[in-house]
């Protein structure tokens, strides 16, 4: 009768279309994509915005002073500093700080002018609450101002006595900051790569589980495998569909991140962090080739599971396992050896950190890392296709 033929390539494409159609009608999988792609941008937006607003608070500082009349010269000097407003101090400074009505209060005792005039150390009390994270930048600012005033007066006194102020400086500390400010920003932003890669992982989970363990749980696997399509074509179709959803989730996540960084007040944080189109392209060039491998591994693991639920719990373990090296990198407990660039997942994270920190990365590394990932993906895919020949896998015995 009908001598129908169909090439394995055509069959794989038929399967891709079916899996994507099936996936796009699953409300749960769509919600997963949206939530997992908005998680990272949302979290980072929140963290940076609150950091920036805290920083702004410290810059425009209003300092309550108790006993301003005891040191008019000091108070005048403070007033002249940029962004400093001097206000009347509260009745009970300790209580005001303890109840967080004030963050820092300067108290100038009665004996200040007497000691000051006698060139003895004149006491100024700085009332602060060390347990309050929010007030820390402000307290540091006030302390810095007072120290500067002290050393300026001290220098003047030495000059008045005919001594160079340099004599009093026995040791000078020079801070040498090794990381550029962009690199420092990259450290803060070190968890972005992790989030972008996790977006790929969660984005593909629906198809990886639904088209393997889910297919068997529904009892549709037998009927599908009776079709004259090679197992490799079937596995490849499912894998391609999953890869496309992973890539879609990564692209949405990256797009949202870059749109968000245009809105963030990064300059308020002293971070010169640029995420323009070239950085975005490079980020995608790093993460997208990882997607085929992530999906191939997910499918291989999910094919062993007897049910959809079982597959999901396997994949949750896999996700946590994948996060460990990333976390270690972010926390700098793992030294960055050159060969680590070629290890999937770890390599991507290192490359992303470099790209976001504006370190130069050679194109060759990009290409080699991409090729390694795709090659591994194909190897794992072949493994999955071999599994589909096993009776125990097909019939779930």
């Amino acid at each position, binding site marked *: *009768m*009908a001598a*129908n*033929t*169909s090439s394995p390539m*055509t*069959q794989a494409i*038929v*399967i891709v279309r*079916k899996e994507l*159609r*099936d996936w796009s*009608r*699953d409300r749960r999988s769509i919600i997963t994509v949206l939530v997992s792609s908005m998680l990272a941008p949302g979290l980072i937006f929140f963290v940076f915005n609150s950091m920036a607003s805290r920083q702004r608070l410290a810059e425009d500082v209003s300092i309550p002073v108790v006993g301003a009349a005891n040191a008019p010269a000091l108070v005048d000097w403070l007033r002249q500093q940029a962004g400093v407003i001097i206000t009347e101090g509260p009745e009970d400074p300790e209580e005001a700080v303890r109840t967080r009505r004030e963050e820092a209060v300067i108290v100038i005792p009665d004996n200040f002018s007497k000691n000051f005039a006698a060139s003895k150390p004149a006491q100024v009390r700085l009332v602060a609450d060390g347990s309050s994270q929010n007030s820390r930048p402000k307290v540091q600012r006030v302390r810095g101002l007072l120290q500067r005033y002290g050393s300026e007066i001290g220098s003047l006194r030495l000059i008045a006595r005919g001594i160079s102020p340099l004599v009093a400086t026995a040791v000078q500390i020079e801070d040498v900051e090794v990381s550029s400010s962009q690199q420092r920003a990259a450290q803060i932003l070190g968890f972005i790569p992790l989030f972008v890669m996790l977006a790929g992982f969660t984005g593909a989970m629906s198809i990886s589980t639904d088209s393997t363990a889910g*297919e068997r749980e*529904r*009892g*549709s*696997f*037998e*009927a599908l*495998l*009776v*079709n*004259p*399509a*090679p197992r490799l074509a079937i596995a490849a179709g499912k894998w391609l569909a999953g890869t496309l959803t992973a890539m879609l989730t990564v692209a949405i996540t990256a797009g949202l991140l870059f749109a968000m960084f245009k809105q963030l007040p990064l300059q308020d944080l002293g971070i010169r962090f640029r995420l323009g189109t070239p950085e975005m392209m490079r980020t995608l060039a790093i993460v997208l080739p990882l997607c085929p491998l992530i999906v191939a591994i997910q499918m291989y693991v999910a094919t062993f599971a007897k049910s959809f639920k079982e597959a999901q719990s396997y994949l949750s373990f896999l996700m946590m396992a994948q996060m460990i090296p990333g976390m270690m990198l972010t926390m700098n407990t793992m030294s960055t050896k050159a060969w680590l660039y070629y290890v999937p997942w770890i390599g991507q994270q290192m490359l992303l950190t470099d790209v976001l920190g504006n370190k130069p990365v050679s194109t060759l590394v990009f290409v080699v890392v991409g090729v390694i990932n795709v090659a591994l993906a194909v190897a794992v895919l072949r493994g999955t296709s071999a599994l589909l020949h096993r*009776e125990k896998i*097909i*019939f779930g*015995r």
Partner: protein
Amino acid sequence: MISIQNLHKRFGDVRAVDGVSFGAADGQVTGLLGPNGAGKTTTLRMLYTLMRPDQGQIVVDGIDAVADPQGARFALGVLPDQSGLYPRLTAREHIEYFGELQGVTGADLRSRTDHLLKMLDMTAIGDRRVAGFSHGERTKTALARAIVHNPKNVLLDEPTNGLDVMSTRAVREIIRRLKDEGHTVLFSSHVMQEVSALCDTIVVIARGRIVGSGSPDDLRRQTGQDNLEDAFVALSGLEPEGQPS
């Protein structure tokens, strides 16, 4: 045309299929009749190439299905033991999916799909997602996708199991039509009436062995029973302990 010779399959210590041989001819309906656990499904699974026999030969239209499972699958249309559907796809999409995998495309695929939906009395629900389908509607959808490519040989594993009267009629109608068109139809059942109403040849299987085969009349003659059901019981050795079989 299907020919099976000396088929063996064991799972651990259990001999699920133990030397089964039979044939199914073109333009005929062959029934594989046996109690639950007799080895019907395992035999069919080896026949539709998802299981590898430990021993034995399967030939489908001259193709050695053990050596060339891929080639045999082109000549088979199968309603397997498990015929689950995709809840989010419509009946039409199910039929078209399998049609495309078999290489049927374009206008040809559309007209065959329409034809099958009409034949199975499903035109009204063809574009509905199968999530809300009844058991009968599901089975009819699975049957339609199994034969969309007009396969020469049709294998049906318990096609009428659990169906209501109307759906059973529709399935029987399809089986008769396939027979008239010259297809080889092989279906399994544990229901006597089902098999006697449809089959030209009945193959009775019990404990992994063929215990009788032939036309309904042949079987009655072989066992000396007037009633086909008694003949089936006698052949499959299902009588209570202590009575002659």
